[in-house]
């Protein structure tokens, strides 16, 4: 096949092009022709198709995501907002922190180990591209039913991949989530979060400015892996390849204008990424970089068009110079390749030599592939012939935007009417005791140690809190003890019952978790995992969830700084529960004042903060005991969340509490069990006036936490709660080696521990 140059395209307007196979709609293809005033070349078509895919263009979600900016609360902390690789937050003392969560769902289903591993790799490069040193990762995960055979294939691979990549990079894993629900069967969610730290003056943005500046591609060679990963794996034409345990598993191949079919799964090389990090931080430190962009989805197509459209000039790239792992790659394939562990930097000519020298020191291949030009076009050449000549903004930012139809699903009313309060409750203390054990042993409530022990939480020597604490906490300055805390949460069951409230509850829980550690919540990142946007019901869920999240962020004063949308998490007609995963970042001036979750000291008083109502819709109890999902999720009260956070932070700062643990799924008994097991101490609980034992133990009312108060601090602590009008109820004391609910039952710690810690090893070891 002869080369499809710009000149050739202009002269052959009627040549048929595989736009449909590349996932473009007819009107989208027409728009490209209008933009260019001719038919696109094969290379241009490849670029537009990947960049206009759902994954890169956010074409279905954009109109809704806008609210995060429009409704953003005024925040002094926000240094860089939505739109860059990741948002940047001021945490004081001249430090800035950047963090972001992203999905790698489909690839992790096809190849669990590599899919999850490259998910970590991708998010780490995003953080690095902002100018920050990555300092920790987290991994919110969702799997199908714990006892489903395919979960046995997917989970161990995903966990090994996250560990394999993150451990090898030397990034501590400080938290995450593991949730099992059959709605994720065939559509597991693998989200990955990374946080990085820099000085204010080190913030770098992805833009190519300054005529004559050189464009340098560095890192791994470009290969044929992952080509079409973007357009195939994230477009509506995606049909699930069967997992390797069933026949006919080659749907990952993707038709391309190029010669061969290439698999859409990439293999990660964490060692290469580690070198890339060290090398990039060194070029930052010497101030050699004018603009920088990581290569993720859509590879060079994305990096060049985004760099060029953010800058003031144009860009010229000679594609022949790109170092290849496979010499047979066509220019289209080079542009679309998603080979991992690559970055693209814009460097002033006088700095190029030094830049290349540092790359050589780290054994990182670096090549000048082009330069910033005076015009406003992105021009790409192959063997001296021009194959791309486009306005870069039309590729990177001016893709199609859809306002897709949405409709509240017909079943929503019936679902909400199916009230969990009507479910049969335990008949007496014996049954109550038995249900407590069943809940704490259920896969969602059970200890996740079997998973988290596969992650290095110590590396870098700054981990102050890590799993199973409410939030992970990292020290960022060894002299002053400044630190940050992060938690992620998202309850798909709540969101299914009410997506608006569900998204708010996800934020509320994450916010509460951060506050429980003693840190002050500052900013939000989110990963919105949903089914197909072409289903009006799903689109309604999406619209409601984004609206709920944006409204709640405004109320809590925590702006969304960035995130990610993952759609088409669906097999046939059945979509996953709407699953907005929300990450909250908080700051703490002195990490030595952090509040851990463990009850460690006999005699300390256990206080329940907040109000408890009989709220069981979407609860762990309704799921585990009755296999039920219906009713309404817990009531949202953001003012209460804010008040609770203020009290937790003040109590931590002033040394009034020794332990705190937020209440969420599983209710009070789950939280107390976890705090007791962590500290190796029992608790004697008393059911408070006005509550029955069942509601006291299992209700999932939001805005609550339990704390352990040293006796000498009791008066000061309760005075503070009273002064601020936060209900604080003394519900027990840390004591003995059993959890005892007076007048109800006693559960020895050993028995609780066996129930809580045995489940995951029994399923997966």
């Amino acid at each position, binding site marked *: 096949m002869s080369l499809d140059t710009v000149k050739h395209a202009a002269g052959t307007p009627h040549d048929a092009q595989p736009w449909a196979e590349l996932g473009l709609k007819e009107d989208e293809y027409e728009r490209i022709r209008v933009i260019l005033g001719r038919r696109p070349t094969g290379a241009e078509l490849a670029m537009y198709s990947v960049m206009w895919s759902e994954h890169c263009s956010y074409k279905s979600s954009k109109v809704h995501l806008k609210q995060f900016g429009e409704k953003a609360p005024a925040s002094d902390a926000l240094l860089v907002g939505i739109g860059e690789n990741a948002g940047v937050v001021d945490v004081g003392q001249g430090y800035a922190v950047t963090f972001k969560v992203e999905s790698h769902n489909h690839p992790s289903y096809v190849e669990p180990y590599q899919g999850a591993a490259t998910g970590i790799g991708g998010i780490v490069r995003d953080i690095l591209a902002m100018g920050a040193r990555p300092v920790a990762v987290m991994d919110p995960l969702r799997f199908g039913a714990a006892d489903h055979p395919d979960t046995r294939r997917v989970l161990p691979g995903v966990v090994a991949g996250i*560990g394999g990549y993150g451990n090898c990079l*030397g990034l501590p894993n400080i938290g995450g989530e593991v949730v099992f629900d059959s709605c994720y069967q065939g559509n597991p969610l693998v989200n990955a979060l990374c946080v990085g730290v820099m000085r204010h003056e080190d913030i770098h943005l992805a833009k190519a400015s300054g005529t004559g500046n050189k464009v340098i591609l560095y890192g791994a060679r470009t290969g044929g892996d992952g080509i079409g990963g973007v357009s195939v794996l994230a477009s509506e034409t995606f049909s699930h390849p069967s997992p390797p345990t069933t026949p006919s598993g080659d749907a990952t191949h993707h038709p391309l204008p190029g010669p061969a079919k290439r698999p859409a799964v990439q293999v990660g090389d964490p*060692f290469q990424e*580690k070198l890339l990090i060290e090398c990039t931080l060194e070029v930052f430190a010497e101030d050699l970089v004018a603009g920088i962009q990581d290569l993720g989805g859509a590879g060079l197509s994305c990096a060049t068009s985004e760099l060029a459209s953010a800058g003031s000039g144009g860009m010229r790239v000679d594609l022949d110079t790109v170092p290849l792992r496979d010499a047979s790659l066509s220019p289209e394939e080079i542009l679309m390749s998603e080979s991992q562990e690559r970055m693209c930097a814009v460097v002033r000519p006088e700095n190029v030599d030094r830049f290349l020298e540092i790359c050589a020191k780290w054994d990182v291949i670096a090549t000048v592939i082009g330069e910033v030009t005076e015009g406003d076009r992105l021009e790409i050449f192959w063997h001296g012939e021009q194959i791309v000549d486009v306005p870069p903004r039309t590729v990177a930012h001016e893709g199609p935007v859809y306002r897709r139809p949405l409709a509240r699903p017909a079943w929503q009313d019936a679902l909400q009417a199916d009230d969990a309060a009507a479910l049969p409750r335990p008949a007496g203390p014996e049954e109550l005791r038995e249900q407590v054990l069943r809940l704490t042993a259920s896969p969602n409530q059970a200890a996740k140690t079997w998973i988290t022990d596969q992650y290095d939480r*110590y*590396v*870098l020597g*700054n981990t102050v809190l890590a799993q199973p604490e409410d939030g992970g906490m990292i020290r960022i300055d060894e002299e002053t003890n400044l630190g940050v805390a992060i938690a992620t949460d998202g309850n798909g069951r709540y969101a299914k019952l009410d997506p608006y409230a569900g998204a708010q509850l996800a934020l509320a829980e994450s916010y509460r978790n951060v506050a429980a550690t003693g840190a002050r919540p500052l900013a939000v990142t989110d990963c919105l995992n949903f089914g197909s946007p072409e289903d009006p019901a799903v689109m309604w869920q999406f619209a409601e969830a984004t609206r709920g999240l944006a409204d709640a962020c405004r109320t809590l004063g925590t702006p969304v700084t960035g995130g990610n949308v993952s759609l088409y998490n669906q097999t046939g007609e059945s979509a996953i529960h709407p699953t907005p995963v929300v990450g909250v970042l908080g700051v703490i001036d002195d990490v030595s004042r952090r509040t851990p979750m463990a009850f460690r000291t006999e005699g300390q008083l256990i206080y329940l903060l907040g109000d408890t109502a009989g709220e069981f819709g979407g609860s762990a109890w309704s799921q585990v005991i009755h296999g039920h999902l219906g009713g309404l999720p817990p009531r949202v009260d953001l003012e209460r969340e804010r008040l609770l956070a203020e009290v937790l932070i003040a109590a931590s700062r002033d040394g009034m509490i020794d332990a705190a643990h937020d209440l969420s799924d599983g209710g009070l008994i789950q939280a107390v069990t976890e705090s007791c097991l962590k500290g190796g101490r029992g608790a004697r609980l008393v059911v408070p006036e006005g509550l029955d034992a069942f509601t006291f133990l299992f209700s999932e009312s939001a805005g609550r936490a339990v704390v352990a108060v040293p006796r000498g601090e009791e008066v000061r602590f309760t005075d503070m709660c009273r002064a601020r009008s936060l209900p604080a109820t003394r519900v027990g004391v840390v004591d003995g080696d059993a959890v005892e609910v007076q007048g109800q039952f006693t559960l020895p710690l050993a028995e609780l521990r066996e129930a809580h810690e045995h489940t995951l090893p029994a399923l997966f070891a």
Partner: protein
Amino acid sequence: MTTRVGVVTFPGSLDDRDAARAVKLAGAEPVALWHGDKDLHQVDAVILPGGFSYGDYLRCGAIARFSPVMETIIAGARAGLPVLGICNGFQMLCESHLLPGALTRNDHLHFICRDQRLRVENAGTAWTADYAEGQEITVPLKNGEGGYVADEGTLDELEAEGRVVFRYLERNPNGSRRDIAGICNPAGNVVGLMPHPEHAVEALTGPTTDGLPFFTSVLKKLVSA
């Protein structure tokens, strides 16, 4: 004069900063050494830190063993230079035959990160003098290939000569023969272990501060030498 303790950075080293921090907390001066530089810059002792040198591809420590700096370190170690290999560093010491045996894939096949209880079996080495023999300590353990193996003859010899320096207590985390967590060479200047003492030097970030005596031991030894 302050004591200078070199910490080598290989491509893929991860716990080099942590080791340097521990050296500093112990009162010595950490000196960064680079894998490609043969020169040891007059250090008095060397730490080979944890991590995934060269990605730990092929076998852990197998590629790092052939780096320029290792040539000098191997020669120095034979001449009495105190050398401590932690985790990946231990693997390098075995690969370069400064210590006998090999480290293999954990028997349960998973990477494991946990707080590990150990017994100090030999308090006479350059790196353990500040412990008491039989002392029990807790430090983090984190590795995927930490199962110590050697033939029976070698194991018997290690036991007989008191060269098993650390043993796992309570639970053998990786299938190591005879619960061996760390060993030394006959002269006691070269010590390798899988657990990470450098992650147990501050109460705020470690499970204990039980790791600090490693670093004070070598300091004392060098000052008194």
